[in-house]
């Protein structure tokens, strides 16, 4: 089982990577995915998360094949 994780904008700069891949045996909450991938970097308060391009809460579960994205507040327009 594998989850693809993406980082955007200033968060990509902070994390130092644009993508991760995480192999998991069971569904995992969004915040747990972050913690596993960034054990030394607490998730910033304002971070937004999307699973398969829809916004989700940080306790939503991600599962095999999902694409999870982390990004800072959006600033378009």
């Amino acid at each position, binding site marked *: 089982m594998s989850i693809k994780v993406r980082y955007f904008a200033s968060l990509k700069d902070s994390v130092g990577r644009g993508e991760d891949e995480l192999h998991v045996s069971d569904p995992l909450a969004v915040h747990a995915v972050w913690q596993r991938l960034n054990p030394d970097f607490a998730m910033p308060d304002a971070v937004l998360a*999307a699973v398969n391009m829809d916004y989700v809460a940080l306790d939503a579960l991600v599962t095999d094949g999902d694409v999870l994205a982390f990004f800072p507040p959006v*600033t*378009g327009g």
Partner: protein
Amino acid sequence: MSIKLCEQAFDPWREIASYQAGLASLAGKYGATGVFVGSMRDFNRGDGVKSMFLEHYPGMTEKQLQHIVEQAQAQWPILESLVMHRVGWVKPDDALVVVAVWSAQRGDAFDASRFIMENLKSRAPFWKKEVLASGAERWVEKNTDGYQRQPG
């Protein structure tokens, strides 16, 4: 409904005119067109800005914009709509975003265009990185609420 992401500079008025020219079946049906165009300023938070990079999340951007327009369609009797947004490198005075709504009555065009614009600002995954006159780069931290008065 049309949603476009543009890598090249465009003339917003020509784009709207061209899109409207394609709405032949709606001619005489819409009494109102509400439009917002956002342009790049050469200053922000007291600093000169000489260029800007617009990052986005390909796929999610289009999905969220479509969702926003559908929400507007559910709330107001919209006849047609156009949303355009620049991505990549932009320079001052470039058009960044266009929202245009065609409807029978003016109140709906005003309300729906503003709804789409405000939701785009708060939900569409775009991020701006400014290159200041000094050469320094910085990410814009957050968008303001367009329904509230902002300090100049």
